[in-house]
């Protein structure tokens, strides 16, 4: 039996060796020079590359099949299919109207350099509900299951976004604005783009979002963020790292009581791995669960400086940048691009056309002003509840349960 297996392995090895690119070496006639072998290898590599390119082209052509329509508005072109054309046309108009007030003339420039593609994602499998086993897949005729919006800015690809089908035009318009945000972020200084998580905020914020932002900041891990929404403007400057990154980030941004949480979340996976090796699960629990602050201090001290990021969450940074763009008007982005300063605060101030202090004051006023009120139920809710109770009571009073 063992001999049989060995024989089979030898035969299979021979078969695979025959199709391997290295197999050529075994059939090369004796006396072939090294340079000839090298040429032959180069030819094989070139052939493999061409095949690879053809495969990619075939895949791209397959993905682009049906993209026969180009929707164009204000210089921006969106390639799409006949089915998706009405949605793309309507949403593009809305998105451009949303972005125009903040981007001004920059929008035309962006439009010339951007390409967008709205694709259908087809499927031949439909999920069917089953009360016993949840959902089952059933083969069906090809149908549009979803859509994707891809884009590129100066040939640099923008992240693809998936959309539900049938398309919600408001959602599609918001997604288009998000692609504008990503494209516009490529035009601002790299440090600011990174600070903004590679998005330039163009979408209007609502008061409800500001209220949620206030709640998020007021219950933040970092003391400096909480002090900021308590009205401390210097804390806001530090928390946003508007001037520069502090040398001692832990001392500048966090209080002693924040250390257990900080030690539990700071750092990337490899840095967390280092901490685990140094302290073990029990050692870490002494800080994060038992809140032994001296253990926390030792854990935090082991982390490198880069482990502690700007404490203001990205949402707050985007909100500040949006305030700057609103203050600056249509020329804000142009001023931001031409700003030759290095600090984030000075760049945003240039965009706002005001001092960074004035910008911060306006942002603080907006966010602090959106502080959620007492959690007493609102009038609409009270009236709706009373109406339901009244209906139920009326129903009960007419009831004759003895019948």
């Amino acid at each position, binding site marked *: 039996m063992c001999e049989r297996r060995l024989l089979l392995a030898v035969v299979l090895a021979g078969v695979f060796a025959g199709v391997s690119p290295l197999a050529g070496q075994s059939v090369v006639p004796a006396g072939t020079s090294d340079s000839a072998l090298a040429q032959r290898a180069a030819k094989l590599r070139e052939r493999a590359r061409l095949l690879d390119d053809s495969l990619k082209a075939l895949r791209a052509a397959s993905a682009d099949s049906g993209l026969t329509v180009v929707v164009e508005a204000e210089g921006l072109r969106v390639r799409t299919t006949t089915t998706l054309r009405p949605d793309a046309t309507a949403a593009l108009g809305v998105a451009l109207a949303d972005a125009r007030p903040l981007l001004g003339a920059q929008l035309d420039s962006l439009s010339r350099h951007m390409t967008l593609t709205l694709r259908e994602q087809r499927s031949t499998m*439909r*999920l*069917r*509900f*089953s*009360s016993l086993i949840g959902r089952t897949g*059933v083969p069906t005729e090809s149908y549009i299951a979803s859509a994707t919006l891809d884009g590129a800015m100066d040939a640099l690809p923008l992240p693809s976004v998936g959309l539900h089908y049938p398309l919600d035009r408001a959602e599609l318009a918001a997604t288009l604005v998000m692609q504008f945000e990503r494209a516009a972020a490529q035009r601002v200084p790299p440090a600011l783009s990174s600070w903004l998580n590679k998005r330039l905020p163009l979408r209007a914020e609502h008061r409800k979002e500001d209220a949620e932002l*206030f*709640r998020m900041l*007021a*219950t*933040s*891990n970092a003391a400096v963020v*909480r002090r900021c*929404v*308590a009205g401390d403007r210097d804390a806001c400057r530090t928390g946003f790292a508007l001037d520069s990154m502090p040398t001692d980030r832990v001392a500048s941004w966090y*209080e*002693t*009581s*924040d250390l*257990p*949480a900080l030690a539990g979340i700071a750092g990337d996976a490899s840095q967390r791995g280092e901490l685990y090796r140094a302290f073990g699960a029990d050692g870490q629990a002494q800080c994060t669960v038992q*809140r032994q602050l001296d253990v926390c201090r030792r854990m935090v001290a082991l982390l490198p400086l880069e482990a502690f990021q700007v404490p203001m969450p990205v949402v707050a940074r985007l909100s500040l940048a949006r305030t700057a763009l609103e203050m600056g008007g249509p020329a804000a982005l142009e001023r931001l691009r031409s700003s030759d300063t290095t600090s984030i605060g000075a760049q945003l101030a240039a965009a706002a056309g005001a001092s960074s202090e004035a910008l911060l004051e306006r942002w603080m006023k907006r966010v602090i002003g959106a*502080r*959620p009120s*007492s*959690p*007493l*139920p609102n009038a*609409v*809710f*009270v009236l*709706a*509840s009373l109406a*339901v*109770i009244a209906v*139920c*009571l009326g*129903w*009960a*009073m*007419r*009831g*004759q*349960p*003895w*019948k």
Partner: protein
Amino acid sequence: MFRAVLYTQWKWTRPVILLAVLVAGYIPVNALRSMSYKSAGTYYIPSLYQSITSASVNYQLLALAVAVVVAISAWQADGQRQHVYALSLPVPRWQFVLLRFAAGAALLGVVAVAVGLFGGVAAAIAPLPAMLHAYPAGLAVRFWLGTLIPFALIFALLASNPRRVKLVVAGVATIVVVDMLLAMVGTTDKPLLVGWFLDGLYAGNGPLAAFLSKWMLIDV
């Protein structure tokens, strides 16, 4: 008359109301006890906030449980005696129903007051960080409204004609079964009517929407 009805219902529901008052006292203590009481500086705000958010679910469960029990208790004795006693009373039926409802609402109010009172005391003892505030009165009002809605729904169901109740239940069951069958044979992707029904109850200003929002004793 109201005092008599209230007293009767109090006798029927006394153990449940007392238990609910105790639970109302335990919920804020449980939510705050994991925190250090030494000084405000030693609070860890995110975990405190999370703890209070979890407590809000406990308040909702308490509200639902106490509302169901009080509503069932209001009609249980009458149902067992074929409503003979209620019909022999010298008051019109609608007035008697109103009295029963008011008595139930008052008993639920006792639990709501306990929620506000215990929440206020617990928040006063615990030194809260500067950014967080206690809202015991707001919570008590929300709790009371939150209990009244399921109470009213069950109360009305039990006080109405049993034949009509059977019809309603059979109608709802038929709709649910048909809806699920349509989804199973592939006419619809998922049960739509059940989804709409639940959305109607819970979304926006639906009668049970209160149970989806957070009932926060402590908030920003």
